């Protein structure tokens, strides 16, 4: 046994007896050379219970969300009350949820066919919204289907409003996936990134629905400034839409 023979050499005996310490030193050298890999991991494992948890963040976010929701509800109530005072919008619109059963966003006609129609209370001219905002208006209705002219269709024209600068414009489809916003005045002071909503003065669509974001502005266009708008609702991939019927539930009942 070479180890036993080595331990019999008198001056080597303390060295051989200290082999556990040599092992510890080797481990320390390894830890040093690996820049503390094992050490940090061990520390992380041990201190896990004392880490700042995700709970605090979630509480904060929930509180913030609750606050925003309450404020939104309050504002909507206020808005409706003020509009009723101004006699702008008589009935709050009813909502009919409808599946999209045919979709032609790329042909000469930009249209959808919905699987709900006259029997569900949809009329021609109703606004159609998808997750993200307004996508178009109902062009014609059969008893069980409705055909929607998308905002990108070249026959579509909707009055819109840039909220930041409070300017009106006419959103016109040009047959591409991004409609063009024609302003009424020469210098509307809009810039890319401005949010476009439906006009508060519009009689065709409910006011204040989000439509999209201005992507580029052409200041030199004649007769007035043009802007290209990216719609906020993903038209090409929407499966279910909501139709805002003109006669609200209250008006239909009475």
């Amino acid at each position, binding site marked *: 046994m070479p180890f036993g023979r080595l331990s019999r050499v008198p001056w080597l005996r303390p060295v051989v007896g200290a082999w556990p310490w040599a092992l510890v030193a080797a481990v320390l050298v390894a830890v040093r050379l690996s820049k503390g890999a094992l050490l940090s991991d061990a520390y992380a494992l041990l201190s896990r219970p004392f880490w700042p948890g995700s709970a605090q963040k979630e509480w904060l976010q929930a509180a913030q969300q609750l606050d925003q929701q309450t404020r939104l509800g309050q504002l909507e109530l206020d808005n409706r009350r003020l509009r009723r005072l101004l006699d702008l919008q008589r009935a709050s619109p009813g909502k009919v949820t409808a599946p999209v059963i*045919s*979709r032609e966003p790329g*042909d*000469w*006609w930009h*249209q959808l*066919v919905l699987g709900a129609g006259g029997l569900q209370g949809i009329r021609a001219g109703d606004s159609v919204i998808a997750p993200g905002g307004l996508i178009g208006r109902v062009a014609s209705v059969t008893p069980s289907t409705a055909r929607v002219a998308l905002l990108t269709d070249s*026959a579509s024209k909707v009055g819109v409003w840039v909220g930041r600068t409070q300017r009106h414009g006419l959103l016109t489809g040009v047959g591409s996936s991004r409609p063009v916003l024609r302003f009424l005045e020469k210098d509307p002071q809009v810039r890319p990134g401005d949010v476009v909503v439906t006009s508060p003065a519009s009689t065709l669509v409910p006011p204040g629905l989000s439509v999209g974001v201005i992507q580029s502005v052409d200041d030199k266009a004649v007769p007035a400034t043009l802007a290209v708008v990216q719609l906020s609702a993903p038209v090409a991939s929407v499966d279910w839409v909501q139709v805002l019927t003109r006669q609200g539930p209250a008006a239909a009942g009475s």
Partner: protein
Amino acid sequence: MASLHRRPLFVVSALAVPLLTLAAPGLLRIGGVPPSWAVLWLLPWALADGPLSGALAGLALGLLLDSLHLGGATQMPALALLGWWWGRLPRRGPPIERSFSLGLLAMLGSTLLGLSVLLQRQAGAGWAVLLTAANLYTLLAQVLVTALLAPMICSLLLLLWRRHSASARG
């Protein structure tokens, strides 16, 4: 030659055109633009069944498709003209079954159809709008995909219908 329209099954096959036009998700699109299914069906029909039947089939398809689309633009005149023209072709020239000629005919046909729709839809807006990138893109993509599909689909249909009319004659 003109015996296809006596077979109800072949006439009913025209219903595939509006169904394929409405289908979601759409079939065989290039950049979101579908082929012109009316051209793909009308070309072999007119070639196999003669000018009068071709023009009438074009009119009927135009009626069907106009009812499915927004606005007042109509495809009826263009489709009827195409059906009449394609119906006259086999009487005069050399045999038409070659894939290249089918593709070329479908290309010309879908160009004419697309231009007729484009002119009707944008007539009021002036030349500047007429030549926008979006319109040219739709036109080019539709012509391309229709011409690419025509040798495959039209030659099969033409084979089937020619064989039938030959057996009906002889």
